[in-house]
């Protein structure tokens, strides 16, 4: 593995290997005073974020530092991007300056793939940390890690992804990964927030949340991405919340063992009730914690092995 660009087409065995590594790393570091491993000493990781992010950028940085890699953060605001440099030139500059891995978030779908193409032959790898409405593979991996931890297995589990599927790279990455790992995925959203071509995805689709609830092992609530919405996708925030929000009443319809996930940032009162988000069956803070271990595992798999002949 040289790049991690999408979960579409990711070999289930490879994905499971990353999850196993994350799990071992988590157990290895548990209760340790010094959470630092020498594994990636001398490797340089650059995070390049063209979009706002708290948890993804921070957890990649923490992950890199706990593995002893040198982590450098480049944000679009404080770099030559502000002077008009293209993504390609910025990436080639970072590669020439010695980056072994570039972690990129970009508002354009497909940006990470383009970047990997431009960096072909330079020895620099690329991790997609979210590209527009396309994919966010490490989020899907950390969701899978959290589900595996809470439910024991993923194969055969029924998982609903609820809300703004259209604009969600998290939903896309999760659909690919969770179905590859053997889960049954149901997308629940108003017709206006489902992408075209969804009928070809390996999922079932529903416009009504209530009848789905009793059969679910997990429910993943998505944020309504107002920043990507230009036009009327639903009549009002209140109406959306009533139809698709995870209220306390709906929460009670879920089976006892069901897990509630949210990729964050949450809009409490919109897609998820505050009391639900804070319930012990919500794994939202755990997702963030697992995010660090999953990203350490991704760095390990991309950077620790022998370089493959190009």
């Amino acid at each position: 593995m040289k790049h991690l660009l999408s979960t579409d087409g990711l070999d289930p065995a490879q994905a499971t290997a990353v999850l196993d590594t994350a799990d071992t790393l988590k157990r290895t570091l548990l209760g340790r005073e010094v959470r630092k491993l020498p594994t990636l000493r001398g490797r340089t990781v650059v995070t390049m974020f063209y979009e706002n992010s708290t948890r993804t950028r921070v957890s990649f940085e923490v992950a890199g530092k706990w593995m002893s890699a040198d982590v450098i953060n480049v944000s679009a605001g404080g770099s030559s991007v502000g002077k008009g440099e293209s993504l390609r030139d910025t990436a080639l500059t970072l590669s020439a300056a010695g980056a072994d891995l570039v972690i990129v978030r970009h508002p354009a779908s497909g940006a990470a793939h383009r970047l990997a193409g431009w960096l072909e032959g330079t020895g620099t790898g690329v991790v997609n940390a979210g590209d527009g409405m396309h994919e966010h593979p490490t989020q899907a991996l950390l969701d899978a890690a959290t589900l595996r931890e809470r439910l024991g297995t993923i194969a055969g589990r029924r998982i609903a992804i609820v809300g703004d599927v259209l604009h969600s790279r998290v939903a896309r990455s999760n659909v690919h990964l969770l179905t590859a790992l053997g889960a049954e995925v149901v997308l629940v959203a108003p017709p206006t927030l489902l992408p075209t071509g969804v009928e070809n995805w390996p999922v079932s689709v529903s416009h009504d949340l209530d009848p789905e609830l009793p059969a679910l092992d997990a429910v993943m609530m998505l944020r309504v991405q107002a920043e990507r919405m230009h036009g009327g996708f639903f009549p009002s925030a209140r109406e959306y919340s009533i139809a698709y929000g995870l209220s306390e009443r709906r929460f009670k319809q879920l089976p006892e063992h069901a897990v509630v996930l949210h990729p964050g940032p949450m809009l409490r009162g919109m897609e998820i009730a505050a009391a639900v988000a804070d319930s012990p069956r919500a794994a939202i803070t755990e997702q963030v914690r697992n995010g660090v271990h999953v990203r350490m595992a991704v760095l390990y798999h991309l950077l620790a092995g022998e370089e493959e002949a190009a």
Partner: protein
Amino acid sequence: MAPRVRGATDPAERELLSAGDVARTIARMAHQIIEKTSLGGEPTRPVVLLGIPSRGAPLARRLAGLIAEFSDVRVPVGALDTTLYRDDLRRRPNRPLESTTLPEGGIDDCLVVLVDDVLFSGRTIRAALDALRDAGRPASVQLAVLVDRGHRELPIRADYVGKNVPTSRTEEVHVCLDELDGRDGVYLRREDHQ
């Protein structure tokens, strides 16, 4: 992990220790550990056995079982994976991590006996010493190996050796343990002879 079938009828393979030899050798090492750490007599420092996966881990468990049998002292056992501390990570394909489990009381101020199947270059032990430093601060560290095959690349020696085997670098020493391979035995195999 599927048990690896080793050395069934290979002509290029020579048996160094039979199943009976392995059992006797481990028993002798258990006696030596009891004697050298005075487990039987005046209690000195708490002793902890840490096996290096994969084959050091079941070896450590067996040693602990025998020590309990011979001396009535129960020594805590754990496993210490060294993968994240290796100096050859970039020279080999990515390797899966094995689990590290430390005994509940930790290893601070204990006498830690590292247990591995084969002592060769000494690099695994160097990595284990680094891993140990991150896991706690033992009072002292000793090393027990089933087979010492020579060719050290670092100033490291074992405190307890089951069997010294002179080898050439082109040979490979295979340790089979019932827990992982379905049977016990130690074999010497010439690498060029596949």
